[in-house]
């Protein structure tokens, strides 16, 4: 049972990340690979605030969001100068740079040593040390994130985003300052991701830079592509799929000495097959 609750918590955290990335990629069409960096800033903010300054978890989420928002503002401002492929590359570059900061700015993050001993959240005396209440908390935050994203997407702001995705030049002619919209959605996406990061830090109770490398960004990207871009339900579904898949693969009895590697082979093959036969993902409306 513990096993399932653990998986449920991971699904909730990654659903939050996927929803955040969907805003930027799915709805606005900006291929960003920086999500792991923002997730990391949220995680480190919570970790540092809880371990060194005894700040309450929920307050740390807010501070983390502010820090991430600031970083996203700067990065987003720079990236807004690029479009298409170059945006992707630039975001790639920022991910690596922020990762290097996590690794090497040791006074702040303890670098590769990581930050152990992060406490579980506490609220009015109740501590979420058992996984079941934590799952409830994570699920609640995921639901909040879902409704927030749905709200944004169905608002007039959201319509502008979709228009930017379809044809940015056209909408500029109508007088919309697209740069402003892109920057705002980038920051919002980053802040939502940061919430996922705070949850992550408090759940695993130990973080180190290796959790926020490029592979994480690519993993979240795969989640929303599999779930279907521009579909918030798809984002949640994709998270569940990609978290459960490796666990289900443990079922296939490969011989012990090659089992782990074989699972990677199967995982890779599944990605390829899915791209070949259903590239819009399960629920996608935005045909890639």
């Amino acid at each position: 049972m513990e096993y399932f609750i653990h998986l449920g918590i991971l699904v909730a955290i990654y659903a939050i990340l996927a929803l955040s990335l969907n805003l930027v990629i799915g709805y606005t069409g900006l291929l960003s690979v920086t999500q792991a960096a923002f997730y990391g800033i949220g995680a480190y903010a919570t970790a540092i605030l809880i371990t060194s300054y005894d700040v309450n978890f929920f307050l740390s989420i807010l501070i983390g969001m502010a820090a991430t928002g600031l970083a996203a503002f700067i990065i987003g401002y720079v990236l807004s100068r690029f479009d298409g492929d170059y945006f992707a590359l630039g975001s790639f570059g920022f991910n690596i740079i922020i990762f290097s900061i996590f690794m090497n700015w040791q006074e702040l993050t303890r670098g590769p040593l990581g930050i152990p001993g992060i406490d579980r959240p506490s609220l009015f005396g109740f501590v979420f040390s058992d996984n079941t209440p934590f799952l409830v908390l994570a699920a609640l935050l995921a639901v909040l994130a879902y409704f927030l994203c749905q709200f944004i997407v169905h608002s007039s702001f959201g319509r502008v985003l979709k228009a930017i995705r379809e044809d940015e030049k056209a909408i500029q002619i109508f007088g919309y300052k697209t740069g402003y919209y892109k920057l705002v959605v980038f920051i919002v996406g980053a802040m939502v991701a940061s919430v996922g990061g705070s949850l992550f830090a408090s759940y695993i109770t130990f973080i180190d830079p290796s959790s926020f490398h490029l592979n994480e960004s690519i993993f979240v990207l795969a989640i929303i592509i599999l779930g279907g871009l521009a579909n918030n339900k798809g984002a949640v579904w994709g998270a569940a799929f990609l978290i459960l898949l490796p666990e289900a693969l443990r079922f296939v009895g490969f011989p012990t000495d090659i089992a782990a590697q074989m699972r990677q082979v199967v995982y890779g093959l599944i990605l390829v097959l899915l791209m070949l036969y259903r590239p819009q993902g399960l629920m996608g409306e935005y045909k890639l």
Partner: protein
Amino acid sequence: MKKTLIGTAIILVLASLVLVVAKNNKRTTDGSVKVGAVLFLTGNQAVFGEEIRNSLLLANEVYNADADTNVELLIEDSQDDPKAGISAYNKLKQQGVSAMISAGDQVSYALSPLANNDKLPLVMTAAAAGEINGDYTFRSFITARKQAEVVGNYAVEDLKSKNIGVLYINNIFGESYLDALKAALHDRAAVVSEEAFNIADSELRTQITKVIASEPDAIVISGFGPGYTTAFNQLRQYGWRGSILTVNTLSIPYVFNTIAPANLHDTYFTDTNFDISEPANAKTAEFIKRYKEKYKTNPSFIGAFAYDMYTVLGSAIQKCGSDPEEIKDCLLDIQGVDAMLGDIDFSTHEMRVPLYVKKVEDGTPAIVKVIE
């Protein structure tokens, strides 16, 4: 609507597969005790995970052949990632393991609070830097800190070095090694250069250039991975004729054999008694022979620690039964286990084994100083 139904169906299928995995292996064979192992079989340190897995499987075979209680070894991949490690841990716990083995500092850091909470003994290996917390966590490995202390003292006392240049790997191992080295050197010698390299770097040309340019009396290299191996050749290529001090990574056969013997003059390293060319005792010779037969390659101290760790666990299970609490108490009191690396003592939660400083002479390591 249809898509949502299909989507939910797929998730349910996956979830039930996961359930099957978890339940399926819960079948308990009469009197069978289970030990779980969370190892990094993929990722940057996969090569170590593979060796640990091989050694554990071998040890399990040997143990079951002699013992009365059958022990089932269940191995899962942590992907060198704390959250996947926790998934693996939970799955193994679900399957009713009485003790857990984990590999790697990061994963062990994440698992240790869980094990302490669940009152499940957790023995970590290939984890040289993290701190041990709690009653149920044990370490079967040699720490970076300890190696750095020995090297620091040796450099100052035996090699009379005053200026040390350091090449270290940019991760938890290298960082804790560097800190401990500086502490050990204290005022007796100065670290004139410290250059870091990343685990994925396969060449350290410029770092080596900088270190040599700082004109040290001796150079210390700490780390592992591709960059570590190439550093030795590159240092000599760039004209370094002085002493090199390093960690026991050098003793790993595929590392040692990759370096040209001519480049290993004046090279000292800290190590356990594990030696491929001259096994220290009968048990070691036996292990090496069996490992080579089964896996067609040479083991190293990493496999030795894993093997000994399993032998100890097996011994504890034999003596004290399958209850995790009993196993934990048994481990603390364990004595007289026939192990390769020395007299196993877990009373401080750290496996204490004798340490040596070895020097490479004519292409083979020779002991020049005994530490403990």
